[in-house]
Structure formats: structure tokens, C-alpha cells
């Protein structure tokens, strides 16, 4: 762990704060759930590049971007596990299956896509079912709207941004000292 990783953690929170707030304000469905959440790119690409630091940032920054967008404090706090898993799973899949962040082969694309799918599905189930239902904010009948809203909003934004970001910037990132091959260094 070096100073650069602490700096990367802070900068990722900063980027996520701005980019996530843009998605939360521009395409809101309600309670911090969005039709198109741009923050997912910072969350998942950050985890793949910077391991544990990216995952930490991915778990923390939505708390702030949601706050700015008017999501109540404790609802945002309830989303932390969902956001942590969304950041963690693609990072874990890339390390477990030794995929290349530069997306050199079809296998790398497939691993990214499947890990995004599972991670976003977990987030989409956790947040409406556990958090929003837990706070009594939704009826059982309206849950599918929020489950699909969360899943679709993250999946579409992930497909639009994650592949291009990884393809365009990974060759640069892996040459910097900030790149984390394992989890913390």
C-alpha cells in the first residue's frame, strides 16, 4: 500500500461523487434509484483497475452522490452493501479468472459482461427488497419497477461505459504505479 493508492481512493470518490450525482439528478426513478446511473462506470472499472481501493471507493462515493441528489441519509447508508458488491464482483472475476483489463480476447469481454450482470442483479435485488422495503417506502406490487429500474439503469450505463473505458484506458493505467494487480498493491 502506497501513498498513491490512498490518493487514488480519494480521487475515485471525487470522480464518482460528480459522475454519480449527474446520473442521480438527470435520470431519477426515486430514492436514489436511476434509469441510467453513470456512476457504475467508476464503481466497476475502478474496482478492476485498483482492486480493493476501487471497491472501497465504489462502496463509499454513491453515499455522497445520492446525498447531493436528495436521497435520505439512512437510505443511502443502506445501499452501501449493494454498491460494495457491484464494485467487488467484476474486480474479483478479473482476478479469479485472470482476465486482461485491456480486453484482449472474447473471454475478457464475457467475464466483464457476466460479472456486471451478476453484480448489478445483486444490487437490484438488495436495494429495493431489503432497503426500500425495510424502510417501508415501497409496496410489494411496485417492487419490480425499482428492481428493473436499478438493474437496467446500471446495466445499460455499464455496457455503454465500462467496455470503452477499459479498452481505451487500461493500456495506460496498467503502466502507472497506481494499477493494482492483486487487491491492495
Amino acid at each position: 500500500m502506497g501513498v498513491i493508492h490512498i490518493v487514488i481512493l480519494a480521487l475515485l470518490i471525487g470522480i464518482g461523487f460528480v459522475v454519480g450525482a449527474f446520473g442521480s439528478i438527470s435520470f431519477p426513478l426515486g430514492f436514489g434509484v436511476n434509469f441510467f446511473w453513470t456512476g457504475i462506470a467508476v464503481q466497476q472499472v475502478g474496482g478492476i483497475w485498483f482492486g480493493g481501493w476501487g471497491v472501497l471507493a465504489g462502496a463509499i462515493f454513491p453515499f455522497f452522490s445520492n446525498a447531493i441528489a436528495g436521497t435520505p441519509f439512512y437510505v443511502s447508508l443502506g445501499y452501501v452493501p449493494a454498491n460494495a458488491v457491484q464494485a467487488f464482483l467484476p474486480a474479483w472475476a478479473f482476478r479469479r479468472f485472470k482476465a486482461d483489463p485491456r480486453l484482449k480476447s472474447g473471454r475478457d469481454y464475457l467475464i466483464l459482461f457476466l460479472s456486471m450482470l451478476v453484480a448489478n442483479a445483486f444490487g437490484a435485488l438488495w436495494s429495493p427488497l431489503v432497503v426500500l422495503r425495510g424502510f417501508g417506502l415501497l409496496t410489494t406490487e411496485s417492487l419490480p419497477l425499482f428492481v428493473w429500474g436499478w438493474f437496467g439503469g446500471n446495466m445499460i450505463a455499464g455496457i455503454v461505459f465500462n467496455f470503452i473505458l477499459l479498452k481505451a484506458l487500461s493500456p495506460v493505467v496498467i503502466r502507472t504505479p497506481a494499477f493494482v494487480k492483486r487487491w491492495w498493491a
Partner: protein
Amino acid sequence: MNKTMLGYVPKESPIYAVHPFVKLYFLLIVSLFPMFVAAPEWNFLLLVIILGLMVISRVDIRIVRIYIPVAISMGSIILISYTILGGRHPEFQVVFNLFGLPIYWERIRDALVVYFRILPMIATMVFFLSTSRERDIIVAMRTIRLPFVVTYVFAMALRAAGMVLEDFQIVRQAEQARGFDTTGKPLTYKIRKYIMYMIPLFALSLRRSEEFTNALVARGYAFTGEASRVKRADYILTHYTFKPHDFVFTAIITLAFIALLVARYGFNYFGLDDSWFIRWLYSVLV
């Protein structure tokens, strides 16, 4: 004027007589209040009190306008989710039929209860953000003795957010200068082209991370090892003392919360059965 996280507050504002920890404590505790209150009129009263505190703090109340679309969209979604998407329940009382879909009294009531719970929670957050500077949050974190590295990361993240916003403007202007214009283009086009901002933003941040690191290392900062264990002077805290009125405010917030819990669970106050608003609405609708 002092720049806060959501706008500007005059330097003479009484809010600056309050220790930053008290503001953070207010956010953490008062955000919990609506969860224990079902009667909408009490939550509405809390909302009015928070707005009153914003006026006393001389916050430019126009800042609330940013959140009006959020409040309206949230209200509409809650109402639609409870009424139109609320399903069919023969055991409920039908108020009217909307295109053959029964709209139930119980669903309208529940939607209003939820909506009036959410509004003061949002207002508490807006009050905190519109009266707190970045420095206030750091002071509050240092006051509760959070580790230096946590406070430092948080401070740097807040600073980074400001820089990313500046970078975003620079990138946008640079792309506009090269003829990139999304005016009149469909939303899908704008979304696709948003990546043109994301790549430079990430690239700029990566470059900045190296500049930041070099600056920190040159100043002898370390977050692990022997150097990190050196006791640091909390210079910023010397500017903020916890005065007697801060103790009083903290005690009032704590006692109010305890009183709320006792009233709710000991005496069954703040429930729907005692709500005059709900009784009045029932007499109007049903």
C-alpha cells in the same frame, strides 16, 4: 460569504457559532426522527422547523428550488407506486376508479405517510449540506477522533470532487471549441457521447494522482510504517472549541430523540390512529 457544499452563507450567519460536530450530530439523529413518526402532520412540522432553521442560519432559501423537482418526482413515484401499481385488494376501501383501476383509501394514506417521512429526511440533508463547508466536515470527523488517514482521504475526496467539476467544464469547452454540439440531438445520442467526457476525466485524474502523490511524499506524508505513527498537531481543531451552547444543542437533540422514542413506544403517540390530518383526509375522500 462562505462557500458551503450547496451554496453560500453569509459570514455573519449564526450557524457559524455552532460547532461542526453539532451539525453532523443533528444530521445523524434528526434524520432518524421521521422513521418513528407515522402521522404526516408531525413530519410536516419537522420539515417546517428545519426550513425555519435554514432561514435563521441565513441560508439562501432559493437553494431549496434545486430539490423541488426531486420532491415532486419522488412524490409522484410514491403515489403511482402505491395507487396505480398497488395491486387489487378487495379488503380495502375504493375511493374512485381510474380507467377501471380501483384507487384505494388505504393506499393513498400510506403514500402520504411515506412521502411526509421522506421530505424532512431530505430537508435535514439539504440543511446540513447548505450550512457546512468542506472544512466543517473535516473538523467534525477530527472531533470524533476518526483516524487521520480517514479524515485525510475524505478531505482529499471533497477537494477532488471540486477539481473533477472544473475538469468537466474544461473538457466540455474544449470539445465545444472543436465543434462538438449536442444541442437538439436525441437523449440516446447524448448518453452515448457522454463517454467523451468520461475518458478525459479519468485520464486527467490519473495524471493528477501522480502529482498529488509526489506532493504528499515530498512533504513527508505516510499512511503506513513508522512515519505514520508520529503524533500530528490538530491545527484545524484549535480554531474550533466546543462551547457550552454546543453541549446544550447536543443535549437537546439527544433528549428530543429519547423523548420521541418514549412517546412512540411508551405512549403510542405519533401513530396514524391519532392523526387529525388522516382523519380529515378520510372524511374528505371517503
